[in-house]
Structures are given as structure tokens and as C-alpha cells.
């Protein structure tokens, strides 16, 4: 058993899984902060309902992000000890700062928010959530600073064979990070947008399908009151506003991601030209962007790749903001890489059985090519759905969603699109960095790099890593089912699931013995 391959699968699976929870935490958190601040400002029942309902879904997801994040923090040392030794001087610092300056704030203030509804003044209570969410965005910054150093090492000098930090400002203002952070955060915002749109659409559709809301002869919605389950007239406003806000949030996310993505591509072409070429399956220098390619880019063979639909000049625009500058292809990059970084892995025992092997500087093209396209296709499809939502809910429209079941189902499935875009983007950028774990900086010391083959823990056996891979994957699978089950349950139940006072609860008015309601916790696990 090859520990390296198993460890890579484990890192990939655990990281992708973690990053399905994280964007929702980042994006939805910001949205719930907005709802909560609006509630504090207006004291309107509608904003309170939105805060409570979306806040509940936020927390169901939040905890999974926290739990799976622990694995991330530990597995560098566990499975990638050589990597940890090599980069520790520069890579550990942002992680430690994340813990001390961000994660502590997030975890402490989220507890205050969950349990503080009746213990804190509303303004202070809302500020606790604001603090927690801001901290989670700072977390993202620190983590991406660390990741960006792997993509584009700066601010270090080689001392005794290891990079040593000499310029913290350069590390923390790495231009790779400064575009990757907003790209990631906008991506998270778009996830929240689709989450709101999908669920609010479904709830509005349900109100129509159940006969609560109807459409009158003038073609306008007649909002009804079901009398049960908190589905009164105010309930309609909750979903209608969530839907429209979701669409706007999604659009902000999409266009922010597109803009920052464009900036990222331009940096990438300078910093990791082979990644860009592999993303394009661009064998030869050129200016055209291919929408589809036939035969198999995964064949890793340039003779096999045939672009079917090409847009002339687009690739140059993506890379250089003009339509004529050639973007270098794989065939011309390969000799440059070989000249700069060697043709064979060194004959060093740290490479194990890979010592002395020829280095393939081309990442898995199938993954980079389709990962790159999957990212903006899924993001783009979601973007179209936001425009559609805004059109359906325009002033002159019916004032609600159409009573079409498949469209409601599609809205729910559509929630997955920006998640998919996020995952595809990360898989692309991490796989595109191969065969390096620390990609060399073309303008820096070529010795400051690390091949993935040298990064794995030498003392840990393949069997140990295989055991943890199986155990973690199995547990993650079970917990994914539990999370989706609870999300679905709370969506179906609607606002009262997060706000029991909306319904006539037999327990609402029980005063046992001499204890008044004041002693009963507003929220308890």
C-alpha cells in the first residue's frame, strides 16, 4: 500500500467535505447577521422569524463545519509530517493566528448567541452573532493565507534547507491570497444565495400547493392563513422576502466571484503557468478558449486533445485583458519546468520508492480541465436562476411563485449548484498545483518548493492511513445523512421549529409549582 496515494485521497476527501459546510457557514452567517440587525433596528416580527429560522439551519450546518475542521488542523502533522517540518516556520503561524484571533472568537460568541436570547440586550445579542461571523471570515483569511503560500511562496529565505519567514507582511499580503480570499468569500455568499432561493421557493410553492395562498382573477396572489404551523400571512412575507434577498445575495456572490476569478486567472498565468495550461488542456501556445474538447484530456497526451468549440481570443482576455497575446501551452512550458526544477526526483530516501523517478509537471488534465469548467458552469447556471427569481417576483408579476411542482423540486436541487462550483474550484486549484505541494515561485528562489511525493509522514504506514481514510469517510457519510435529514426536517416544519411561540403549545403556559417562565431557559439543548 502506497501511503502517499492514500494520504492524498484522505486529504482530498476530508477537505472537500469540510468545504461543503464552510461556505454555507460563511455566507449564511452573514445573511443571518443582516436579518438579526434588521430585527434589532425595526423590532418587526418578520425579521425575527427570518433570524430564527435561517439561524437554526445555520447552526445545524455550523457544527459540522467545526467538527470536520478539527481534522484539518491535525492531519498536517499526522499524515504530512515532512511537509509540516518543511513549511512549519511560515505555514504554522497563520494557522495559530486563526485559532487565537478568529476561531476562539467565533466559538465563544456563537455560544453567547445561541443561549443569549433572553440573557443579553437585543443589540448586544445581535453583535455577538456579528462578532462570530466576522471571526469566521477572518478564519477564512488566515487559512487562505496559508494555502496561498503553498501556491505562491513569498516572504521567506532558505536556511539549512528549510524556508524561514523573513517578511511577515509579504506572507500576509501575498497577492495570491488577496484575490483568493474575496474569491472564496464571494463563492460562499453565492452558496447562501442559492440556499435561500431554493428553500424559500419551496416554502412558497408549498403554501400554494396546500391551498394557503391562491391567485385571484386579477392575476395577483391572495395571501391566506392556514391557521396551523405558524403559516399565517406574515409567514408568506418571510418566504417572499427570503426569496428575493436570496436572489440578490446570489447575484452579488456570482459577479463578485467572476470578477475576482478573472483576477486570479491573470495571477495564475504568471505564478503557475502549467496549472492554467492544464486547465485549458492547452497543448500549444494560443489565444482561444475551448468550451469543449473531444477525445480525452485525461490521456495526458497532447496528440489526443482536440478542441471542438473554441472562442478565439477569450483565453488571452482571461489571462491578459487583450485578444492577441499568446498564452503558453504545455509543450512550450514543459522544457522550462524541466530546466528550472529538474527532470527527475532527487535520489533521496525521503522520496521512498519514487526517488530518482522522472517528474511529470503536468497535473491530471481531466481534473483541471473539467474542474475549471464545472466551476463556472455551475456558478453560471445558478446565476441565471437568480435573474429568473427576480423576474418571477417582480412588481407586475403574480407576487408569488408558480404552482409547478418540478420547478420547486428544481429549486431544491439547484441549491447544490454553487456547492458544486466551490468544490470544483478547490479541486482544480489544489490538483492543478501538482506535482508540487509547495509550488515554486517563478520570481523567487527555485529551491523553495516541495514535491508532494516528499511531504507524507515517513513513519506512518499505509495501513494506518487506510484505516483512518475508511473510518473518516464512513463517519462523514453517516453525518452527511444526519445533517441533510435535519435540514429537511426543519425546512418542512418551517418557522415554528425555530420559534415555538408561534403556535399554541401545550407547554407554553405550564407553570409548575412556584417556578415562573422567567426561570425556564429561552433555548436549551
Amino acid at each position, binding site marked *: 500500500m502506497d501511503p502517499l496515494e492514500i494520504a492524498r485521497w484522505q486529504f482530498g476527501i476530508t477537505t472537500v467535505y469540510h468545504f461543503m459546510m464552510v461556505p454555507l457557514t460563511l455566507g449564511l452567517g452573514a445573511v443571518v447577521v443582516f436579518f438579526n440587525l434588521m430585527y434589532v433596528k425595526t423590532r418587526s416580527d418578520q425579521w425575527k422569524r427570518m433570524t430564527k429560522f435561517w439561524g437554526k439551519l445555520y447552526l445545524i450546518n455550523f457544527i459540522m463545519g467545526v467538527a470536520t475542521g478539527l481534522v484539518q488542523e491535525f492531519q498536517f502533522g499526522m499524515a504530512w509530517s*515532512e511537509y509540516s517540518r518543511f513549511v*512549519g516556520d511560515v505555514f504554522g503561524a497563520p494557522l495559530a493566528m486563526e485559532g487565537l484571533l478568529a476561531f476562539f472568537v467565533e466559538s465563544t460568541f*456563537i*455560544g453567547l448567541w445561541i443561549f443569549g436570547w433572553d440573557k*443579553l440586550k437585543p443589540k448586544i445579542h445581535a453583535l455577538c452573532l456579528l462578532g462570530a461571523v466576522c471571526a469566521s471570515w477572518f478564519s477564512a483569511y488566515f487559512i487562505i493565507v496559508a494555502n496561498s503560500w503553498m501556491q505562491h511562496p513569498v516572504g521567506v529565505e532558505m536556511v539549512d534547507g528549510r524556508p524561514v519567514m523573513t517578511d511577515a507582511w509579504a506572507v500576509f499580503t501575498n497577492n495570491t491570497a488577496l484575490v483568493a480570499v474575496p474569491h472564496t468569500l464571494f463563492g460562499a455568499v453565492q452558496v447562501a444565495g442559492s440556499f435561500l432561493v431554493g428553500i424559500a421557493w419551496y416554502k412558497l410553492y408549498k403554501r400554494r400547493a396546500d391551498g394557503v395562498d391562491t391567485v385571484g382573477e386579477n392575476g395577483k396572489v391572495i395571501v391566506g392563513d392556514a391557521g396551523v404551523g405558524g403559516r399565517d400571512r406574515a409567514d408568506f412575507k418571510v418566504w417572499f422576502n427570503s426569496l428575493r434577498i436570496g436572489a440578490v445575495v446570489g447575484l452579488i456572490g456570482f459577479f463578485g466571484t467572476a470578477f475576482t476569478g478573472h483576477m486570479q486567472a491573470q495571477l495564475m498565468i504568471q505564478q503557475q503557468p502549467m496549472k492554467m495550461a492544464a486547465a485549458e488542456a492547452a497543448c500549444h501556445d494560443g489565444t482561444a478558449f475551448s468550451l469543449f474538447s473531444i477525445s480525452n484530456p485525461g490521456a495526458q497526451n497532447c496528440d489526443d486533445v482536440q478542441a471542438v468549440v473554441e472562442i478565439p481570443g477569450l483565453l488571452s482576455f482571461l489571462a491578459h485583458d487583450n485578444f492577441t497575446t499568446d498564452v503558453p501551452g504545455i509543450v512550450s512550458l514543459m522544457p522550462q519546468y524541466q530546466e528550472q526544477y529538474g527532470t527527475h526526483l532527487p535520489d533521496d530516501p525521503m522520496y521512498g520508492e519514487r526517488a530518482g523517478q522522472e517528474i511529470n509537471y503536468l497535473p491530471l488534465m481531466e481534473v483541471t480541465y473539467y474542474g475549471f469548467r464545472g466551476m463556472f458552469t455551475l456558478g453560471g447556471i445558478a446565476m441565471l436562476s437568480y435573474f429568473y427569481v427576480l423576474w418571477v417576483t417582480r412588481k407586475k408579476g403574480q407576487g408569488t411563485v408558480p404552482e409547478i411542482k418540478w420547478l420547486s423540486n428544481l429549486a431544491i436541487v439547484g441549491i447544490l449548484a454553487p456547492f458544486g462550483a466551490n468544490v470544483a474550484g478547490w479541486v482544480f486549484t489544489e490538483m492543478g498545483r501538482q506535482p508540487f505541494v509547495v509550488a515554486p515561485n517563478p520570481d523567487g528562489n527555485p529551491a523553495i518548493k516541495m514535491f508532494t511525493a516528499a511531504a507524507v509522514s515517513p513513519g506512518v504506514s499505509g495501513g494506518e492511513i487506510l484505516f483512518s481514510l475508511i473510518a473518516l469517510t464512513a463517519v462523514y457519510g453517516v453525518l452527511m445523512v444526519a445533517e441533510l435529514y435535519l435540514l429537511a*426536517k426543519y425546512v418542512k416544519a418551517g418557522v415554528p421549529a425555530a420559534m415555538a411561540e408561534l403556535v399554541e403549545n401545550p407547554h407554553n403556559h405550564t407553570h409548575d409549582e412556584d417556578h415562573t417562565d422567567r426561570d425556564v431557559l429561552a433555548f436549551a439543548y
Partner: protein
Amino acid sequence: MEFFGSAPTLPTVWFVVVGFFWIGYIALDGFDLGVGMLMSGLFARNEKERRLLLNTIGPVWDGNEVWLVTAGASMFAAFPMWYAGLFSGIYLPLVFTLLALIFRAVAIEYRGKKNTERWVKGWTLAMNIGSFLIAFFIGAALAITATGLPLNANGDRVGGAFSWLSLPAIIGGLAFVGFAIVHALAFVALKTDGEIRVRARKALVRLLPVGVLPLLVAIIYMQITSASVLSLVASVISVVAVVVAWVFARAAREGKTFASMMVFIIFGMLSIFLALFPNVLPSTLDAANNLTVANASSSPYTLGLMSVVACFGIPVLLIYQSWTYWVFRKRLSVHSIPEAHDAADLATLPNAR
């Protein structure tokens, strides 16, 4: 500028900071883990009591757990060789720790989200077993870093997947489990009211001598093998504190009991870390392979940068975490716990007003 014998200053400061985070984790999450174990049939008598116990730690457990994350991350930043050598060396114990941490966290949040017996029982079990395993393996991990691993010259463990398994590791595991249980009893006696408060205190009086025994063994073992003047002083303070805690528990002084338990664990752990110093992870094969504060640490530049961050971050952290405990200072009783409902049932009830 060498204040600490031959050990360099900045790495020594960071040894103290890393120790601070580990000790904070043991002292704070210790009672969370103990409460997780007390929620089993060992102490809790019914569902109301289980929920009461859970809600004593509800607002604070997540903040407490971050002490562990930051302990790990600050090891990475300040002592990459220690982080890499220890974490890869005890791969399997950490896998179990991570699985247990995941289950505990999710159990706390998800346990009450569906009101059926099977669901609640299942997550309670995850909470009990998860809390036990976290305590056992973290205790074992700290005992291992104090007593050593078979490390080669590169700092890698040799001898296979189980070469970390040793008597000190098991004693360390039992030490944290035992301490967590009695620490949680002191915490519950302080944080609850009614019959359960009395029961917790009485159980504490009975169990304290047994519960802290393995930890006392670990403390004394470290003093015998590698004591320094400072570590001896700390160990004496910890032993005095635990006796004082027991006296206070018998006298039904709950606040003072819990405070004495805190002094006990802080100085007890301190005595272990001080006895370990200047090593951070000894090699059981060859003393030349020992990882020390000097040879395992990051560059002075990185440590200096981190020191500036810590000077700001740690005091602020202590302030807002203390504020949380102040906000939720009120004792809870079984009457404080609202009735459990299931989300699906609420959706079928008539609207209020």
C-alpha cells in the same frame, strides 16, 4: 539573553504558551468531557437530568474546545518538529480522538433536534463514548509527549503503528478520564440547583480520591524521573490543592471546591510540563534524538511575530471567555429545562393568538 539555563529565550516563552493552551484545554474542556460521561447511566437518572447536565456546558463547551485547536496550531507554528513528530507518531490515538471529537460536537447540537427515543439515546451514547475517548486519548497523548516515543534522528516514530503504546500512555489516559469525571462533579455541584446539586457533591466526596489517583501517579512519576526545582514546587502546590478541594467538598463549599480543583489541575499539569522541559518530546531510543525547545522550534522571527500576536490575543481571549461564564453564571435546575418538542409536531399545532 538566556534566562532558562541553556535553553534559548523565545522558544522557552513559546513552550510556556503551548503549555498554557494545553493546560487551559484540560482545565476547561475537562469538565465538558466529564459532563459528557456523567450523562450516561452512571450519574444521570432521567432525560430531564441528562438535558440539565448538557445545558450546564451548552453555551461554553465550543469555546473550551478551541483551546485544543489552538494548542495544536501553536505547536505547529512554534515547534514544527514537535508537532510533526508527535502527531505522526501517535497517528492512531489521534484518529480516535478526532472521530470522538466529531461525534461529541455533533451529538451536542443534534441530540435535541428530534424527539424520539432512538434518536436521543443514540446521540447520548455518542456523547458518552465520545467524551470518554477524547479524554483517554488526549491524556495518553500528553503522557506520551512527556515520557517519549521511539524517535529516529529525523524525528519519526519507528517500530510500527502501536509503538506508542506504553504503561505511561495508559496511565495518562486514565488520569484525564478520572480527573474529568471528578472535575465535572465539582462543576455540576456549582452550576446546578436542587437534588442533583447535592448528589453531585456527595459523589464528588466519594470519588475524588479515586478519580485523581492516576493523575497523581503521573505527576509523581514525572518528578521522580526528571524533576526540576520549579516542577517540584508546582507538584507540591497541586497535591495541596487537591486535598483542599476534598476538604471543601466535604464542607459543601462548592465554589471553593471547584476553584481548588482548578488550582490542582493547573499546577499538576504545570509540574509535568516543567519536568519535561527543556525536552518537548524525548526519544526512547537515543537521547541524541530528543526533541527539545531548542532543536524543535521555529525561527526567532516567527516566534517574535507570534509573541506580538499572543500578547494581544491571549488577554482579550481571557476577557471575553470570562464574560461568557459571567453571562451564564446562574445555576440551572431541572425546572429551567423547557419541554422537548419535535419540529414536525410544532408544524401541526394551531397558530398562537
